[in-house]
Protein backbone atom coordinates (compact mmCIF):
# COMPACT_ATOMS: atom_id res chain seq x y z
CA UNK A 1 0.00 0.00 0.00
CA UNK A 2 1.31 3.39 -0.95
CA UNK A 3 1.43 5.79 1.95
CA UNK A 4 0.11 8.59 -0.27
CA UNK A 5 -1.95 7.07 -3.13
CA UNK A 6 -1.62 9.12 -6.31
CA UNK A 7 -5.32 8.91 -7.23
CA UNK A 8 -6.56 10.73 -4.10
CA UNK A 9 -6.90 14.38 -3.10
CA UNK A 10 -5.65 15.71 0.26
CA UNK A 11 -6.03 18.54 2.78
CA UNK A 12 -3.61 20.44 5.01
CA UNK A 13 -5.36 18.87 7.99
CA UNK A 14 -4.50 15.33 6.77
CA UNK A 15 -7.81 14.13 5.34
CA UNK A 16 -7.92 12.27 2.02
CA UNK A 17 -10.74 12.48 -0.53
CA UNK A 18 -11.64 9.92 -3.21
CA UNK A 19 -13.83 10.96 -6.12
CA UNK A 20 -16.44 8.19 -6.49
CA UNK A 21 -18.11 9.81 -9.50
CA UNK A 22 -21.74 11.04 -9.57
CA UNK A 23 -20.70 13.98 -7.39
CA UNK A 24 -20.01 11.78 -4.37
CA UNK A 25 -16.65 11.50 -2.60
CA UNK A 26 -15.31 9.40 0.24
CA UNK A 27 -13.28 10.94 3.08
CA UNK A 28 -10.79 9.45 5.52
CA UNK A 29 -7.60 10.37 7.36
CA UNK A 30 -4.21 9.75 5.79
CA UNK A 31 -1.61 7.13 6.63
CA UNK A 32 0.54 9.95 7.99
CA UNK A 33 -2.30 11.18 10.27
CA UNK A 34 -3.05 7.75 11.75
CA UNK A 35 0.69 7.21 12.24
CA UNK A 36 1.00 10.46 14.21
CA UNK A 37 -2.04 9.66 16.33
CA UNK A 38 -1.06 6.07 17.08
CA UNK A 39 -3.56 3.32 17.92
CA UNK A 40 -7.07 4.69 17.52
CA UNK A 41 -9.59 3.79 20.19
CA UNK A 42 -12.67 5.88 19.40
CA UNK A 43 -14.24 7.51 16.35
CA UNK A 44 -17.12 9.99 16.28
CA UNK A 45 -18.78 10.49 12.90
CA UNK A 46 -21.33 13.02 11.62
CA UNK A 47 -25.00 12.14 11.20
CA UNK A 48 -26.10 11.03 7.75
CA UNK A 49 -27.90 13.86 5.88
CA UNK A 50 -25.92 16.46 7.82
CA UNK A 51 -24.86 19.45 5.72
CA UNK A 52 -21.22 20.51 6.14
CA UNK A 53 -19.15 23.33 4.74
CA UNK A 54 -15.53 22.83 3.78
CA UNK A 55 -13.28 23.17 6.83
CA UNK A 56 -16.10 22.50 9.27
CA UNK A 57 -15.62 19.91 12.05
CA UNK A 58 -17.10 16.65 10.85
CA UNK A 59 -16.03 14.27 13.59
CA UNK A 60 -13.39 13.23 16.08
CA UNK A 61 -10.73 10.52 16.04
CA UNK A 62 -9.25 9.59 19.39
CA UNK A 63 -6.12 7.60 20.13
CA UNK A 64 -4.45 6.76 23.43
CA UNK A 65 -2.27 9.83 22.83
CA UNK A 66 -4.71 12.48 21.67
CA UNK A 67 -8.16 13.36 20.39
CA UNK A 68 -8.20 15.15 17.07
CA UNK A 69 -10.96 16.82 15.07
CA UNK A 70 -11.64 15.66 11.53
CA UNK A 71 -12.67 18.42 9.14
CA UNK A 72 -14.82 18.10 6.09
CA UNK A 73 -12.56 18.78 3.10
CA UNK A 74 -15.54 19.82 0.97
CA UNK A 75 -18.99 21.41 1.14
CA UNK A 76 -21.90 19.03 0.81
CA UNK A 77 -24.21 16.58 2.55
CA UNK A 78 -23.24 13.38 4.34
CA UNK A 79 -24.68 10.36 2.51
CA UNK A 80 -23.04 7.52 4.45
CA UNK A 81 -20.75 6.85 7.40
CA UNK A 82 -18.50 3.89 8.11
CA UNK A 83 -20.45 2.30 10.94
CA UNK A 84 -18.01 -0.56 11.46
CA UNK A 85 -15.54 1.93 12.96
CA UNK A 86 -17.65 2.16 16.13
CA UNK A 87 -16.57 -1.34 17.15
CA UNK A 88 -13.31 -1.55 15.20
CA UNK A 89 -11.55 1.84 15.13
CA UNK A 90 -8.28 -0.03 14.44
CA UNK A 91 -9.36 -0.32 10.79
CA UNK A 92 -8.12 3.26 10.40
CA UNK A 93 -4.64 2.19 11.51
CA UNK A 94 -4.65 -1.02 9.51
CA UNK A 95 -6.09 0.27 6.26
CA UNK A 96 -6.64 4.05 6.28
CA UNK A 97 -7.50 4.33 2.57
CA UNK A 98 -9.90 1.41 2.06
CA UNK A 99 -11.57 -0.20 5.10
CA UNK A 100 -10.81 2.76 7.35
CA UNK A 101 -12.86 5.34 5.38
CA UNK A 102 -14.90 7.73 7.57
CA UNK A 103 -17.80 9.20 5.58
CA UNK A 104 -19.16 9.94 2.10
CA UNK A 105 -20.24 13.39 0.98
CA UNK A 106 -22.54 14.47 -1.86
CA UNK A 107 -20.71 17.49 -3.20
CA UNK A 108 -22.48 20.80 -3.61
CA UNK A 109 -19.96 21.81 -6.26
CA UNK A 110 -18.15 18.99 -8.08
CA UNK A 111 -15.33 21.31 -9.11
CA UNK A 112 -14.40 21.80 -5.46
CA UNK A 113 -12.20 18.69 -5.59
CA UNK A 114 -9.85 20.52 -7.95
CA UNK A 115 -8.93 22.99 -5.20
CA UNK A 116 -7.58 20.26 -2.89
CA UNK A 117 -3.94 19.12 -2.72
CA UNK A 118 -2.74 16.37 -5.03
CA UNK A 119 -0.53 13.54 -3.78
CA UNK A 120 2.67 15.32 -4.70
CA UNK A 121 1.68 18.54 -2.93
CA UNK A 122 0.59 16.63 0.17
CA UNK A 123 3.86 14.68 0.25
CA UNK A 124 5.75 17.98 0.15
CA UNK A 125 3.63 19.36 2.96
CA UNK A 126 4.32 16.50 5.35
CA UNK A 127 8.05 16.58 4.59
CA UNK A 128 8.03 20.28 5.54
CA UNK A 129 6.32 19.45 8.83
CA UNK A 130 9.02 16.93 9.68
Amino acid sequence: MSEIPADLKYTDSHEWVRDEGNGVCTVGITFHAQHLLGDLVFVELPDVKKALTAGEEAGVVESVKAASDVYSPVTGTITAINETLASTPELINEDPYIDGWLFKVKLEDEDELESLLNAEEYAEKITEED
Partner: protein
Amino acid sequence: MNIFEKSTPHRRALMQAPRASLKTALPAALLRQTPAQLPEVSELQAVRHYTQLSQRNFSIDTHFYPLGSCTMKYNPRGVHKIAMLPDFLRRHPLAPLHESQGILQCLYELQEILKTVTGMSGVSLAPMAGAQGEFAGVAMIRAYHQARGDFARDEFLVPDAAHGTNPASAVMCGYKVREIPTKADGDLDLNALDAALSSKTAGIMLTNPSTLGVFEKQIALIAKKVHEAGGLLYYDGANLNAILGKVRPGDMGFDVMHLNLHKTFATPHGGGGPGSGPVACNDRLKPYLPVPIVDEKDGDYYLLDKSHLPHSMGRLSAFLGNTAILLRAYIYSRILGREGMIRAAEFATLNANYLMHRLQKAGFELAYPKRRASHEFIITLKTWPKQYGVSAMDVAKRLLDYGCHAPTTYFPLLVPECLLIEPTETESKEALDQFVEAMIAIQKEAKTSPDIILNAPHTQPVRRLDDVKAARQLDLVWRKAKPAEIHTEKV
Protein backbone atom coordinates in the same frame (compact mmCIF):
# COMPACT_ATOMS: atom_id res chain seq x y z
CA MET B 1 -6.35 -10.70 42.64
CA ASN B 2 -9.05 -8.41 44.01
CA ILE B 3 -10.48 -8.76 47.47
CA PHE B 4 -13.65 -10.46 46.20
CA GLU B 5 -11.53 -13.19 44.70
CA LYS B 6 -9.93 -13.76 48.11
CA SER B 7 -13.37 -14.34 49.62
CA THR B 8 -14.31 -17.53 51.46
CA PRO B 9 -18.04 -18.03 52.16
CA HIS B 10 -19.07 -17.05 55.72
CA ARG B 11 -15.61 -15.83 56.74
CA ARG B 12 -16.00 -12.67 58.82
CA ALA B 13 -14.14 -10.30 61.06
CA LEU B 14 -16.47 -10.48 64.03
CA MET B 15 -14.91 -7.58 65.88
CA GLN B 16 -15.61 -5.33 62.87
CA ALA B 17 -19.06 -6.65 62.03
CA PRO B 18 -22.04 -4.38 62.63
CA ARG B 19 -24.21 -5.38 65.58
CA ALA B 20 -27.12 -7.51 64.50
CA SER B 21 -29.55 -5.38 66.48
CA LEU B 22 -28.66 -2.24 64.50
CA LYS B 23 -31.75 -0.05 64.56
CA THR B 24 -32.46 2.10 61.59
CA ALA B 25 -34.92 4.87 60.88
CA LEU B 26 -35.32 3.76 57.26
CA PRO B 27 -38.81 2.51 56.34
CA ALA B 28 -38.94 -1.27 56.06
CA ALA B 29 -39.95 -1.04 52.40
CA LEU B 30 -36.62 0.56 51.55
CA LEU B 31 -34.46 -2.03 53.30
CA ARG B 32 -32.76 -4.60 51.09
CA GLN B 33 -34.12 -8.12 51.24
CA THR B 34 -31.05 -10.01 50.08
CA PRO B 35 -27.65 -9.54 51.69
CA ALA B 36 -25.15 -7.33 49.81
CA GLN B 37 -22.36 -9.15 48.00
CA LEU B 38 -19.42 -8.17 50.15
CA PRO B 39 -15.99 -9.73 50.29
CA GLU B 40 -15.81 -12.34 53.03
CA VAL B 41 -12.32 -12.18 54.50
CA SER B 42 -10.67 -12.08 57.91
CA GLU B 43 -9.40 -8.83 59.37
CA LEU B 44 -5.79 -9.85 58.71
CA GLN B 45 -6.59 -10.73 55.09
CA ALA B 46 -8.16 -7.31 54.61
CA VAL B 47 -5.20 -5.54 56.23
CA ARG B 48 -2.70 -7.44 54.08
CA HIS B 49 -4.69 -6.88 50.91
CA TYR B 50 -4.84 -3.12 51.25
CA THR B 51 -1.32 -2.78 52.65
CA GLN B 52 0.04 -4.69 49.66
CA LEU B 53 -1.97 -2.52 47.27
CA SER B 54 -0.61 0.63 48.93
CA GLN B 55 2.93 -0.71 48.56
CA ARG B 56 2.42 -0.82 44.82
CA ASN B 57 1.89 2.93 44.71
CA PHE B 58 4.47 4.85 42.74
CA SER B 59 3.87 8.14 44.45
CA ILE B 60 5.37 11.35 45.72
CA ASP B 61 5.85 9.61 49.09
CA THR B 62 8.08 6.98 47.50
CA HIS B 63 9.69 8.47 44.38
CA PHE B 64 10.70 11.62 42.49
CA TYR B 65 7.60 12.70 40.57
CA PRO B 66 8.37 15.40 37.98
CA LEU B 67 4.95 15.26 36.28
CA GLY B 68 4.85 18.53 34.34
CA SER B 69 1.80 20.77 34.61
CA CYS B 70 0.71 18.87 37.74
CA THR B 71 2.94 20.37 40.46
CA MET B 72 3.35 17.14 42.38
CA LYS B 73 4.87 18.82 45.40
CA TYR B 74 5.13 17.07 48.73
CA ASN B 75 2.12 17.40 51.06
CA PRO B 76 3.68 18.19 54.45
CA ARG B 77 2.57 15.80 57.21
CA GLY B 78 2.33 18.65 59.69
CA VAL B 79 -0.52 20.12 57.68
CA HIS B 80 -2.49 16.87 57.83
CA LYS B 81 -1.79 16.62 61.53
CA ILE B 82 -3.32 20.01 62.27
CA ALA B 83 -6.21 19.56 59.83
CA MET B 84 -7.08 16.30 61.58
CA LEU B 85 -7.39 17.75 65.06
CA PRO B 86 -10.47 16.15 66.62
CA ASP B 87 -12.47 19.35 66.75
CA PHE B 88 -12.10 19.87 63.00
CA LEU B 89 -12.95 16.26 62.24
CA ARG B 90 -15.97 16.11 64.55
CA ARG B 91 -17.68 19.25 63.38
CA HIS B 92 -20.98 18.38 61.72
CA PRO B 93 -21.61 20.25 58.46
CA LEU B 94 -25.05 21.23 59.79
CA ALA B 95 -23.67 22.57 63.09
CA PRO B 96 -24.99 26.09 63.79
CA LEU B 97 -22.74 28.97 62.76
CA HIS B 98 -22.21 30.24 66.30
CA GLU B 99 -20.68 26.85 67.11
CA SER B 100 -18.58 26.88 63.92
CA GLN B 101 -16.69 30.14 64.37
CA GLY B 102 -13.29 28.42 64.36
CA ILE B 103 -13.65 26.76 60.96
CA LEU B 104 -15.33 29.87 59.52
CA GLN B 105 -12.40 32.00 60.70
CA CYS B 106 -9.96 29.62 58.97
CA LEU B 107 -11.95 29.82 55.73
CA TYR B 108 -12.30 33.60 55.97
CA GLU B 109 -8.57 34.01 56.48
CA LEU B 110 -7.88 31.63 53.57
CA GLN B 111 -10.09 33.85 51.37
CA GLU B 112 -8.04 36.88 52.49
CA ILE B 113 -4.73 35.09 51.84
CA LEU B 114 -5.87 34.04 48.35
CA LYS B 115 -6.94 37.63 47.58
CA THR B 116 -3.49 38.88 48.59
CA VAL B 117 -1.69 36.18 46.61
CA THR B 118 -3.73 36.75 43.43
CA GLY B 119 -4.21 40.51 43.58
CA MET B 120 -7.97 40.04 43.36
CA SER B 121 -10.69 41.61 45.52
CA GLY B 122 -13.14 38.73 45.80
CA VAL B 123 -12.77 35.00 46.45
CA SER B 124 -15.22 32.12 46.68
CA LEU B 125 -14.00 28.79 48.00
CA ALA B 126 -17.06 26.94 46.67
CA PRO B 127 -15.70 25.21 43.50
CA MET B 128 -14.86 21.55 44.17
CA ALA B 129 -12.06 21.26 41.61
CA GLY B 130 -10.01 23.26 39.13
CA ALA B 131 -12.37 22.50 36.26
CA GLN B 132 -15.35 23.68 38.30
CA GLY B 133 -13.44 26.84 39.20
CA GLU B 134 -12.86 27.42 35.49
CA PHE B 135 -16.53 26.86 34.78
CA ALA B 136 -17.43 29.34 37.53
CA GLY B 137 -15.04 31.97 36.19
CA VAL B 138 -16.30 31.75 32.61
CA ALA B 139 -19.93 31.69 33.82
CA MET B 140 -19.21 34.89 35.78
CA ILE B 141 -17.84 36.56 32.64
CA ARG B 142 -20.99 35.52 30.81
CA ALA B 143 -23.19 36.90 33.59
CA TYR B 144 -21.23 40.17 33.46
CA HIS B 145 -21.81 40.66 29.71
CA GLN B 146 -25.46 39.70 29.98
CA ALA B 147 -26.05 42.06 32.90
CA ARG B 148 -24.85 44.87 30.63
CA GLY B 149 -27.30 43.75 27.96
CA ASP B 150 -24.41 42.70 25.71
CA PHE B 151 -25.64 39.44 24.19
CA ALA B 152 -23.55 39.58 21.00
CA ARG B 153 -20.39 38.26 22.60
CA ASP B 154 -20.44 34.54 21.86
CA GLU B 155 -16.74 33.78 21.28
CA PHE B 156 -14.01 32.84 23.74
CA LEU B 157 -10.35 32.93 22.72
CA VAL B 158 -8.08 30.10 23.83
CA PRO B 159 -4.40 29.66 22.86
CA ASP B 160 -3.51 26.41 21.11
CA ALA B 161 -1.12 25.60 23.97
CA ALA B 162 -3.92 25.64 26.56
CA HIS B 163 -5.06 22.83 28.81
CA GLY B 164 -7.98 20.93 27.29
CA THR B 165 -10.20 22.07 30.15
CA ASN B 166 -10.06 25.68 28.87
CA PRO B 167 -11.98 25.20 25.61
CA ALA B 168 -14.20 22.67 27.42
CA SER B 169 -15.16 25.24 30.09
CA ALA B 170 -15.89 27.87 27.45
CA VAL B 171 -18.11 25.45 25.51
CA MET B 172 -19.88 24.37 28.71
CA CYS B 173 -20.79 28.03 29.24
CA GLY B 174 -22.24 28.24 25.73
CA TYR B 175 -19.35 29.90 23.92
CA LYS B 176 -17.73 29.20 20.57
CA VAL B 177 -13.99 28.68 20.93
CA ARG B 178 -11.49 30.50 18.72
CA GLU B 179 -8.01 29.09 18.88
CA ILE B 180 -5.07 31.52 18.94
CA PRO B 181 -1.74 30.12 17.69
CA THR B 182 1.54 30.33 19.57
CA LYS B 183 4.78 31.66 18.01
CA ALA B 184 7.94 29.57 17.78
CA ASP B 185 9.36 31.30 20.89
CA GLY B 186 6.37 30.14 22.98
CA ASP B 187 4.57 33.50 23.27
CA LEU B 188 1.10 34.20 21.90
CA ASP B 189 0.81 35.32 18.26
CA LEU B 190 -0.39 38.92 18.66
CA ASN B 191 -1.29 39.32 14.99
CA ALA B 192 -3.62 36.36 15.28
CA LEU B 193 -5.01 37.85 18.51
CA ASP B 194 -5.69 41.17 16.74
CA ALA B 195 -7.44 39.33 13.93
CA ALA B 196 -9.61 37.35 16.34
CA LEU B 197 -10.67 40.19 18.65
CA SER B 198 -14.01 41.79 17.86
CA SER B 199 -17.30 42.86 19.39
CA LYS B 200 -18.09 39.14 19.58
CA THR B 201 -15.19 38.45 21.98
CA ALA B 202 -16.43 37.59 25.47
CA GLY B 203 -12.95 36.92 26.80
CA ILE B 204 -9.68 35.02 26.61
CA MET B 205 -8.36 32.19 28.77
CA LEU B 206 -4.63 32.21 29.49
CA THR B 207 -2.22 30.28 31.67
CA ASN B 208 0.86 32.26 32.66
CA PRO B 209 3.47 30.82 32.83
CA SER B 210 1.97 28.92 29.92
CA THR B 211 1.80 25.17 29.47
CA LEU B 212 5.00 25.54 27.44
CA GLY B 213 6.78 26.40 30.69
CA VAL B 214 7.56 29.99 29.72
CA PHE B 215 6.30 33.31 31.09
CA GLU B 216 4.12 35.15 28.56
CA LYS B 217 6.08 38.41 28.33
CA GLN B 218 3.42 40.28 26.35
CA ILE B 219 0.73 39.83 28.99
CA ALA B 220 0.25 43.55 29.72
CA LEU B 221 -0.26 44.25 26.02
CA ILE B 222 -2.60 41.25 25.61
CA ALA B 223 -4.70 42.47 28.57
CA LYS B 224 -4.89 45.95 27.05
CA LYS B 225 -5.97 44.63 23.65
CA VAL B 226 -8.63 42.28 25.05
CA HIS B 227 -10.06 44.93 27.39
CA GLU B 228 -10.16 47.48 24.56
CA ALA B 229 -12.20 45.01 22.52
CA GLY B 230 -14.61 44.73 25.46
CA GLY B 231 -13.56 41.23 26.50
CA LEU B 232 -12.38 39.99 29.89
CA LEU B 233 -9.35 37.89 30.85
CA TYR B 234 -9.52 34.53 32.57
CA TYR B 235 -6.38 33.25 34.33
CA ASP B 236 -5.94 29.49 34.58
CA GLY B 237 -4.18 29.02 37.92
CA ALA B 238 -2.49 25.78 36.83
CA ASN B 239 0.99 27.27 36.97
CA LEU B 240 0.60 29.71 39.83
CA ASN B 241 3.29 27.89 41.81
CA ALA B 242 5.98 29.49 39.64
CA ILE B 243 5.01 33.08 40.40
CA LEU B 244 3.66 32.90 43.95
CA GLY B 245 4.51 36.16 45.72
CA LYS B 246 6.41 37.40 42.63
CA VAL B 247 3.73 38.67 40.28
CA ARG B 248 -0.03 38.59 40.71
CA PRO B 249 -2.65 37.72 38.07
CA GLY B 250 -4.70 40.74 39.21
CA ASP B 251 -1.73 43.02 38.46
CA MET B 252 -1.19 41.38 35.06
CA GLY B 253 -4.68 42.54 34.06
CA PHE B 254 -6.70 39.38 34.62
CA ASP B 255 -10.32 39.76 35.76
CA VAL B 256 -11.02 36.30 37.13
CA MET B 257 -9.09 33.10 37.84
CA HIS B 258 -9.13 29.82 39.69
CA LEU B 259 -6.50 28.33 41.97
CA ASN B 260 -5.68 24.65 42.17
CA LEU B 261 -5.14 24.22 45.88
CA HIS B 262 -3.94 20.66 45.26
CA LYS B 263 -1.05 22.05 43.24
CA THR B 264 0.07 25.38 44.64
CA PHE B 265 -1.13 24.87 48.21
CA ALA B 266 0.08 21.30 48.66
CA THR B 267 -3.24 19.61 49.39
CA PRO B 268 -3.56 15.93 48.41
CA HIS B 269 -3.42 15.39 44.69
CA GLY B 270 -4.27 12.75 42.18
CA GLY B 271 -6.63 9.83 42.10
CA GLY B 272 -9.42 12.16 41.05
CA GLY B 273 -9.67 14.17 44.22
CA PRO B 274 -10.71 15.47 46.61
CA GLY B 275 -9.96 18.66 44.75
CA SER B 276 -10.60 22.29 45.40
CA GLY B 277 -10.54 25.13 42.90
CA PRO B 278 -11.42 28.48 44.52
CA VAL B 279 -12.31 31.27 42.12
CA ALA B 280 -10.95 34.82 42.58
CA CYS B 281 -11.96 37.98 40.73
CA ASN B 282 -11.78 41.78 40.68
CA ASP B 283 -14.54 44.23 41.59
CA ARG B 284 -16.12 44.02 38.16
CA LEU B 285 -17.07 40.35 38.57
CA LYS B 286 -17.51 40.19 42.35
CA PRO B 287 -21.33 40.31 42.29
CA TYR B 288 -21.41 37.02 40.34
CA LEU B 289 -19.15 34.90 42.59
CA PRO B 290 -20.62 31.55 43.66
CA VAL B 291 -21.90 31.27 47.24
CA PRO B 292 -21.37 30.68 50.09
CA ILE B 293 -18.67 33.23 50.90
CA VAL B 294 -17.49 33.74 54.49
CA ASP B 295 -17.71 37.30 55.79
CA GLU B 296 -16.82 38.90 59.10
CA LYS B 297 -18.36 41.68 61.17
CA ASP B 298 -17.17 42.74 64.62
CA GLY B 299 -15.33 39.46 65.10
CA ASP B 300 -18.35 37.35 64.08
CA TYR B 301 -18.06 35.11 61.04
CA TYR B 302 -21.14 34.39 58.91
CA LEU B 303 -22.04 33.22 55.40
CA LEU B 304 -23.05 35.33 52.44
CA ASP B 305 -25.70 33.62 50.32
CA LYS B 306 -28.06 34.59 47.51
CA SER B 307 -29.95 36.96 49.83
CA HIS B 308 -26.79 39.05 50.24
CA LEU B 309 -25.51 38.53 46.70
CA PRO B 310 -28.58 38.38 44.45
CA HIS B 311 -26.50 38.26 41.24
CA SER B 312 -24.41 35.31 42.43
CA MET B 313 -24.23 32.37 40.04
CA GLY B 314 -25.44 30.29 42.98
CA ARG B 315 -24.10 27.22 44.70
CA LEU B 316 -21.56 24.82 43.23
CA SER B 317 -21.18 22.49 46.18
CA ALA B 318 -22.88 21.32 49.34
CA PHE B 319 -22.19 23.09 52.63
CA LEU B 320 -18.90 25.04 52.54
CA GLY B 321 -17.16 23.34 49.59
CA ASN B 322 -14.40 20.81 50.19
CA THR B 323 -13.76 22.04 53.73
CA ALA B 324 -11.15 19.46 54.74
CA ILE B 325 -9.03 20.40 51.73
CA LEU B 326 -9.54 24.14 52.21
CA LEU B 327 -8.38 23.71 55.78
CA ARG B 328 -5.15 22.05 54.61
CA ALA B 329 -4.47 24.87 52.15
CA TYR B 330 -5.06 27.39 54.95
CA ILE B 331 -2.64 25.65 57.30
CA TYR B 332 -0.06 25.22 54.53
CA SER B 333 -0.14 28.92 53.70
CA ARG B 334 0.03 29.90 57.38
CA ILE B 335 3.03 27.61 57.94
CA LEU B 336 4.82 29.03 54.88
CA GLY B 337 3.86 32.63 55.44
CA ARG B 338 4.52 35.40 52.91
CA GLU B 339 8.28 34.80 52.82
CA GLY B 340 7.85 31.04 52.59
CA MET B 341 5.54 31.29 49.59
CA ILE B 342 8.02 33.47 47.74
CA ARG B 343 10.74 30.94 48.57
CA ALA B 344 8.56 28.11 47.24
CA ALA B 345 8.22 29.89 43.88
CA GLU B 346 11.94 30.69 43.77
CA PHE B 347 13.01 27.13 44.50
CA ALA B 348 10.46 25.67 42.08
CA THR B 349 11.94 27.88 39.36
CA LEU B 350 15.54 27.29 40.41
CA ASN B 351 15.03 23.51 40.42
CA ALA B 352 13.46 23.57 36.95
CA ASN B 353 16.22 25.73 35.50
CA TYR B 354 18.96 23.62 37.10
CA LEU B 355 17.44 20.45 35.69
CA MET B 356 16.95 22.08 32.28
CA HIS B 357 20.57 23.22 32.02
CA ARG B 358 21.98 19.88 33.14
CA LEU B 359 19.83 17.97 30.63
CA GLN B 360 20.75 20.39 27.85
CA LYS B 361 24.43 19.88 28.67
CA ALA B 362 23.88 16.13 28.52
CA GLY B 363 22.69 16.50 24.92
CA PHE B 364 18.91 16.66 25.30
CA GLU B 365 17.08 19.02 22.97
CA LEU B 366 15.07 21.81 24.63
CA ALA B 367 11.80 22.79 22.97
CA TYR B 368 12.33 26.48 23.83
CA PRO B 369 16.12 26.85 24.21
CA LYS B 370 16.05 30.63 24.17
CA ARG B 371 13.68 30.93 27.10
CA ARG B 372 14.31 30.65 30.80
CA ALA B 373 12.19 27.92 32.36
CA SER B 374 9.49 28.93 34.77
CA HIS B 375 8.66 26.07 37.14
CA GLU B 376 8.76 23.50 34.31
CA PHE B 377 10.30 22.99 30.89
CA ILE B 378 9.99 20.79 27.81
CA ILE B 379 12.53 18.56 26.13
CA THR B 380 11.73 16.97 22.80
CA LEU B 381 12.89 13.51 21.73
CA LYS B 382 11.63 14.08 18.19
CA THR B 383 14.79 12.66 16.61
CA TRP B 384 14.74 9.50 18.73
CA PRO B 385 12.05 7.43 16.94
CA LYS B 386 13.99 7.57 13.65
CA GLN B 387 17.46 7.48 15.20
CA TYR B 388 16.97 4.79 17.82
CA GLY B 389 13.43 3.45 17.31
CA VAL B 390 12.62 4.73 20.81
CA SER B 391 9.72 7.08 21.62
CA ALA B 392 9.09 9.50 24.48
CA MET B 393 6.62 6.98 25.91
CA ASP B 394 9.32 4.27 25.96
CA VAL B 395 11.66 6.61 27.84
CA ALA B 396 8.85 7.40 30.30
CA LYS B 397 8.42 3.68 31.01
CA ARG B 398 12.16 3.12 31.40
CA LEU B 399 12.43 5.97 33.93
CA LEU B 400 10.28 3.89 36.30
CA ASP B 401 13.08 1.30 36.45
CA TYR B 402 15.43 4.08 37.54
CA GLY B 403 13.11 5.04 40.40
CA CYS B 404 11.65 8.18 38.81
CA HIS B 405 8.03 8.74 37.93
CA ALA B 406 7.80 9.73 34.28
CA PRO B 407 7.40 13.40 33.39
CA THR B 408 4.24 14.33 31.47
CA THR B 409 4.44 12.89 27.96
CA TYR B 410 2.91 14.13 24.71
CA PHE B 411 1.59 17.32 26.34
CA PRO B 412 1.52 20.07 25.24
CA LEU B 413 0.48 18.70 21.86
CA LEU B 414 2.44 21.45 20.07
CA VAL B 415 5.78 19.77 20.76
CA PRO B 416 6.40 16.33 19.19
CA GLU B 417 7.76 13.48 21.38
CA CYS B 418 7.94 15.78 24.36
CA LEU B 419 8.58 15.35 28.05
CA LEU B 420 7.19 18.16 30.23
CA ILE B 421 9.32 18.17 33.38
CA GLU B 422 8.35 19.87 36.64
CA PRO B 423 10.54 19.01 39.62
CA THR B 424 8.78 21.36 42.15
CA GLU B 425 10.47 23.13 45.05
CA THR B 426 10.32 20.17 47.40
CA GLU B 427 13.11 18.15 45.72
CA SER B 428 16.74 18.21 46.84
CA LYS B 429 19.69 18.74 44.50
CA GLU B 430 20.57 15.04 44.98
CA ALA B 431 17.14 13.96 43.72
CA LEU B 432 17.51 16.22 40.67
CA ASP B 433 21.00 14.88 39.95
CA GLN B 434 19.72 11.33 40.20
CA PHE B 435 17.10 12.11 37.55
CA VAL B 436 19.75 13.58 35.23
CA GLU B 437 21.90 10.45 35.71
CA ALA B 438 18.89 8.28 34.84
CA MET B 439 18.22 10.28 31.68
CA ILE B 440 21.88 10.02 30.64
CA ALA B 441 21.82 6.27 31.26
CA ILE B 442 18.68 5.91 29.12
CA GLN B 443 20.28 8.01 26.39
CA LYS B 444 23.18 5.52 26.34
CA GLU B 445 20.82 2.56 26.27
CA ALA B 446 18.99 4.10 23.32
CA LYS B 447 22.24 4.03 21.36
CA THR B 448 23.52 0.63 22.48
CA SER B 449 20.61 -1.55 23.61
CA PRO B 450 17.25 0.03 22.78
CA ASP B 451 15.40 -3.24 23.53
CA ILE B 452 15.86 -2.59 27.25
CA ILE B 453 13.91 0.66 26.82
CA LEU B 454 11.33 -0.77 24.46
CA ASN B 455 10.42 -3.54 26.93
CA ALA B 456 10.52 -1.38 30.06
CA PRO B 457 9.49 -1.30 32.82
CA HIS B 458 11.33 -4.38 34.11
CA THR B 459 11.15 -3.77 37.86
CA GLN B 460 7.50 -2.88 38.46
CA PRO B 461 4.64 -5.13 39.69
CA VAL B 462 3.18 -4.97 36.18
CA ARG B 463 5.01 -4.68 32.86
CA ARG B 464 3.94 -2.59 29.89
CA LEU B 465 0.15 -2.23 30.03
CA ASP B 466 -1.96 -2.58 26.91
CA ASP B 467 -3.48 0.90 27.01
CA VAL B 468 -5.00 0.43 23.57
CA LYS B 469 -6.94 -2.64 24.70
CA ALA B 470 -7.91 -0.89 27.92
CA ALA B 471 -9.39 1.98 25.90
CA ARG B 472 -11.07 -0.18 23.29
CA GLN B 473 -12.51 -2.75 25.68
CA LEU B 474 -13.02 -0.81 28.87
CA ASP B 475 -14.07 -3.18 31.65
CA LEU B 476 -14.36 -1.58 35.07
CA VAL B 477 -16.92 -3.66 36.93
CA TRP B 478 -15.96 -6.89 38.65
CA ARG B 479 -18.70 -9.48 38.50
CA LYS B 480 -18.84 -12.62 40.54
CA ALA B 481 -18.05 -15.59 38.36
CA LYS B 482 -20.88 -18.10 37.97
CA PRO B 483 -20.38 -21.29 40.02
CA ALA B 484 -19.75 -23.34 36.88
CA GLU B 485 -16.91 -21.01 35.87
CA ILE B 486 -15.30 -21.22 39.30
CA HIS B 487 -15.45 -24.99 39.02
CA THR B 488 -13.78 -25.04 35.60
CA GLU B 489 -11.04 -22.69 36.78
CA LYS B 490 -10.21 -24.98 39.68
CA VAL B 491 -9.91 -27.99 37.34
